[in-house]
């Protein structure tokens, strides 16, 4: 590594062009860009699947998706959105921004970084092509619960391998991010001087290397149960299907914080920038993030209240889950306090940040409702749960990703995006998101089960509203694509620091950020 640095420095500007540049690049900005485009592609693929689901649910009865096919699409929608869209998006932001923000010239392991990205391609191909193999894709839901996942056809094996590859990719990516943050910070940048985005990613990366291997283990057990005669979960051989749920959610609950913590970091940078005030309670933000991460290991049972659990377990998980509201509340109050008496302006990143705070808090409240065991027993596997996690994943993770794109787009492209279209994109997304998902609360309270392609007649009106909203939400994202492409191609020149209230080292390099930055590390005071 050290040997190549000097040779690399001499080779500036002589990088291979065309496809070879992207295949062999070890540059954090190139890889970040590829991550972001990959994520957007998967967002569209997963989004088309969501629209297929909503088209089937537009009216009662089976229209054009057989129940098996419907289940497969629901499963792939979940897997692709979580592992293909949200996580790579945040890894893309991490690649682009962490070295810029900590004053490092690149990620710690360039070659590994390249590999982490390119692993995503076969994994996503495995997932998507499993739709056309005999028996179709895995139709068990993204949680891959046995006994069904032990019985399905080869589409399930492809899903398992895809999960393995995705797991390796994100573990390697996380190791890279942790090493970069711990070892390559500019002199003078102590841990408690790091930008919040870097902090949240450091904690997220630790979560990933702690739980992704557990998930890999769980699906490996599924695989050996399927083909190699073990009986971890197969009841026929003395195994326990509920054990899978415990192992899966030991991964699965930290996973939901993996997809939201970097979003918290982004919001913690965008809100101060457009409030023209430093972040309120930086230290408490760091500790709140760490507390959420630690608590996330002790709440997995709340996904299993109806799976058979002793009362002591139900009470423990109920109280532990409610405890998470405390550090999360600290964060929300800190964001609001940051805005208090600030000189606010409402550019697109700020709009998405405010939308995030408003809608994510709603998702947090419906989460508190679901945390109550007796209520959860009623609402388990209804559309109330679907509404809840889309408020946290779409209005949470996706909105924060949009905020990040608009916030850093001038730095990446050197151009300002079209503010009017950006705001239009926000308001369309905000409106159609709520039209799609708010009504699902009512459907869930009225007892509509999820993961079923048909429904009783009394749910028809809300489902039609939700489906219309979903198509509006999907089409609005084409506007986003248009805004990004026009911003790459041209637009008003962006200053090195286009947002007057923004803080951080990334605004000290020119816009667009040159291919190599911080080759001499800055001194942080």
């Amino acid at each position, binding site marked *: *590594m050290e040997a190549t640095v000097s040779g690399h420095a001499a080779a500036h500007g002589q990088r291979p062009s065309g496809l070879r540049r992207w295949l062999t690049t070890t540059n954090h900005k190139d890889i970040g860009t590829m991550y972001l485009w990959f994520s957007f592609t998967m967002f569209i693929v997963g989004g088309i699947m969501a629209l297929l689901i909503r088209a089937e649910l537009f009216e009662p009865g089976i229209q054009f998706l057989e129940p098996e096919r419907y289940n497969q699409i629901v499963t792939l929608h979940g897997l692709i959105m979580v592992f293909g869209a949200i996580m790579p998006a945040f890894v893309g932001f991490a690649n682009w921004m962490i070295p810029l923000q900590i004053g490092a010239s690149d990620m*710690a*392991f360039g070659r590994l970084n390249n590999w982490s990205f390119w692993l995503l391609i076969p994994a996503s191909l495995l997932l998507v092509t499993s739709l056309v193999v005999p028996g179709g894709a895995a139709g068990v839901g993204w949680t891959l619960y046995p006994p069904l996942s032990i019985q399905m056809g080869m589409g399930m094996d492809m899903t398992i391998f895809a999960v393995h590859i995705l797991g390796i990719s994100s*573990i390697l990516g*996380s*190791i890279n991010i*942790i*090493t970069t943050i*711990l*070892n390559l910070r500019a*002199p003078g940048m102590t841990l408690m001087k790091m930008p919040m985005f870097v902090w949240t990613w450091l904690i997220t990366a630790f979560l990933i*290397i*702690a*739980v*992704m*291997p*557990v*998930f*890999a*283990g*769980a699906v490996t*057990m599924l695989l050996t149960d399927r083909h190699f005669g073990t009986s*971890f979960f197969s009841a026929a051989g003395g195994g326990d299907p509920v*054990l899978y749920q*415990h*192992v899966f959610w*030991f991964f699965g609950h930290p996973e939901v914080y993996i997809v939201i913590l970097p979003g918290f970091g982004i919001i913690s940078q965008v809100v101060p920038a457009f409030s023209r005030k430093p972040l309120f309670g930086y230290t408490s933000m760091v500790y709140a993030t760490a507390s959420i991460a630690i608590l996330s290991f002790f709440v997995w049972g709340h996904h299993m209240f109806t799976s*058979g*659990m*002793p*009362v*002591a*377990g139900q009470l423990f998980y109920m109280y532990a889950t409610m405890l998470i509201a405390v550090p999360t509340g600290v964060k929300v109050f800190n964001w609001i306090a940051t805005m208090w008496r600030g000189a606010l302006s409402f550019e697109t990143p700020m709009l998405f940040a405010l939308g995030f705070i408003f809608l994510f808090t709603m998702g947090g409240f419906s989460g508190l409702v679901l945390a109550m065991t007796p209520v959860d027993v009623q609402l388990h596997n209804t559309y109330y749960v679907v509404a809840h996690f889309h408020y946290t994943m779409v209005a949470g993770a996706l909105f924060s990703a949009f905020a990040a794109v608009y916030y850093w787009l001038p730095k990446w492209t050197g151009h300002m995006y079209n503010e009017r279209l950006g705001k239009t994109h926000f308001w369309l997304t905000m409106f159609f998101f709520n039209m799609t998902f708010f009504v699902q609360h009512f459907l869930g309270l009225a007892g509509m089960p999820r993961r079923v392609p048909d429904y009783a007649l009394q749910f028809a009106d809300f489902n039609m509203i939700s489906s219309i909203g979903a198509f509006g939400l999907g089409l609005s994202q084409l506007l986003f694509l248009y805004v990004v492409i026009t911003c790459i191609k041209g637009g008003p020149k962006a200053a090195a620091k286009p947002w007057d209230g923004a803080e951080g080292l990334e605004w000290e390099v020119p816009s667009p950020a040159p291919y190599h930055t911080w080759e001499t590390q800055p001194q942080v005071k």
Partner: protein
Amino acid sequence: MSVPPRPNNRKTLIKLALFSALMFGFGYALVPLYSVFCSVTGLNRVGSNDAPLNTQVDLSRVVDVEFDSNVHDMPWKFRPLQAHMLVHPGAVSQAMFEVVNKKNEAVTGQAIPSYGPREAALYFHKISCFCFSKQTVAAGQTRRMPVVFVVDPSLPKDINTITLSYTFFAVEGNTRAEADKPSSRS
């Protein structure tokens, strides 16, 4: 400018990779760990301590239920096996009655309940009762019959004693064939 000693990236990589490998193993270790955890704490006996608790029982009140029995012009001896019971309103209780047919042929009768005080009838819910159907008792037979009942928790506060009285009446056309047919509930 002096360069501060750079921490060894490779060392960090190895540590983190080792940690990931350990966590992969931990996933497998969870399989026996769950069994051990459950058997140590006894938490896996789902349902054993989940006996249904009747929250409708008013433990603050005790109602004295007295039993009385009569026969109207029948060759039967009919008596309650307990003179009275102390019950909590809302609790399910059972009382036993005994009937002896002193005649040397089968006799069919129907028990009619009455309550004292009369308004207690509204609050006295019989879940199962021999008075719900005709009873045919063979010659010389002795039969024990239960009444399962709940005193409604909304029983007015001034009623602390309820008398439940049954009177058996002979059923007209007292034949064996007819006796087997169920009659409507009283």
